[in-house]
């Protein structure tokens, strides 16, 4: 499994266009942070939540797409299935790398929350942590759905699902924040939502893994 994870990491960062994509995403993030600081309070909270709960998680769910693109180009599965690794380990290696990416992005998101709330008094730590909690929840569900879509549909159609779901969540966020306001999303104690929601999110990932494994086994049967 170590070798496969190493290969996927290499393909995510050592291929020029993939490396450039990640850099572009980070640049976009910085631009959003700049835009956030120049607007009014609604814009500040809107962009803060967008970055914490949405952009960071989206970044964290993209590892499988880069490696799948390379694998499909050369039919890497054909040689991979001759290696002494089981189909379970092959699928697990994709999920492990994805969860590592996700964790790193959520950690960066948390660092962003702490640094922003401590340097600006317009968003409290509680509001920041609520946004971050939504981000963790969203990242787990999005990761679960998108990974399964990639295994079921392949890279091209999986990418369409990725973009569609990202736009769907973005649309829902936009609608809720406009209709109900940012207070609805950020204020108040959200602890219960996270206590129930995050285990459900983890369950989604586990179910997604087993569904992806079933797809992979069926493809090579």
């Amino acid at each position, binding site marked *: *499994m*170590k*070798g*496969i*994870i*190493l*290969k996927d990491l*290499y*393909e995510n960062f*050592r*291929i020029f266009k993939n490396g450039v994509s990640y850099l572009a995403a980070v640049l976009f993030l910085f631009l959003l942070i700049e835009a956030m600081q120049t607007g009014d309070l609604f814009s500040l909270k809107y962009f803060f939540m967008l970055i914490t709960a949405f952009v960071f998680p989206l970044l964290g769910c993209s590892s499988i797409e880069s490696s799948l693109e*390379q*694998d499909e*180009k*050369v*039919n*890497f*599965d*054909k*040689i*991979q*299935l*001759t*290696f*002494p*690794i*089981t189909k379970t380990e092959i699928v697990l290696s994709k999920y492990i790398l994805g969860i590592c990416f996700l964790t790193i992005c959520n950690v960066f998101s948390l660092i962003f929350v702490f640094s922003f709330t401590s340097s600006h008094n317009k968003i409290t730590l509680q509001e920041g942590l609520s946004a971050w909690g939504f981000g963790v929840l969203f990242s787990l569900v999005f990761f679960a759905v998108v990974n399964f879509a990639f295994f079921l549909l392949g890279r091209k159609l999986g990418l369409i699902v990725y973009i569609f779901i990202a736009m769907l969540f973005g649309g829902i966020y936009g609608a809720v924040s406009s209709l109900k306001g940012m207070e609805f999303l950020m204020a108040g104690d959200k602890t219960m939502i996270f206590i129930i929601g995050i285990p459900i999110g983890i369950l989604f990932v586990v179910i997604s893994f087993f569904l992806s494994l079933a797809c992979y086994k069926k493809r*090579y*049967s």
Partner: protein
Amino acid sequence: MKQALHIKNLTKKYKDFTLDHISLDLPYGMILGLIGENGSGKSTLINSILNIVKADYDEVHILGQDLKSQEKEIKKEIAVIFNDSHYGENLTPLFIGKMLSGIYTDWDQKKFTDYLKQFHLPEKKRLKTFSTGMKVKLEFAAALSHNPKLLILDEATNGLDPVFREEILEILREFTEQEDHSVLISSHITSDLDKIADYIAYIHEGRLLFLKSIDELNNDCGIIRCGREFFDALSPEDIIAYREEPYSYCVFIKNRQSLRKAFCDISIENASIEDMMLFYSKGEKII
């Protein structure tokens, strides 16, 4: 004798093709050449024993281990080379070595770099700059660097120049000098199999037509070129297939020794593997 590869009643069904009840054995230390027309089922057989596709079978034992329960252990000791490279084009040989060292516990990085030098492959260049031949050479370098006991080649030498093919045949000969090393090679280049194979298995339309040793084939079979009169004098039981030519018959015969005793002055030529394939697939049969 213990078998490096033991297959019993392997069947794989597709919508319009069936690999039908294949049974074969490959003893340790031997090279088995798998021949057959395009679409005959050679790759399906190889994919089935590697569990790349699920097939039905009574028994598949590789290196004495059961494929159903010990697949991972088996794959530690086998190496497979296909006719084109399946490593990503942005990878370098050096990185492929690092990747495979994380997959195979017996990976020998020094052996791998030695093979890269022997095959004149640049360590740090991306595979997209490699020719087809260079990619196959890399596959061989990778395959031989984790001390496998069984090599499986699925038309791996098809795109190679004759000089490198000869180098590969020499490597395969050396490989099988060790008693517990064996090779299964599927190839259209039957001249290579003539040089190297100990056994030949011929798959035709999903069925195993024969599995014989090269010695058996050479001792038992041959080609007679004769006229109509002599052809009529041959017993149908001695004729595998024949070709009618403008002024003669070209007959692929068995029971070579008894025919030689019966007809002392006839000339019986050795049949190459290509001849056998052509006669079996295109020759006329005595009904």
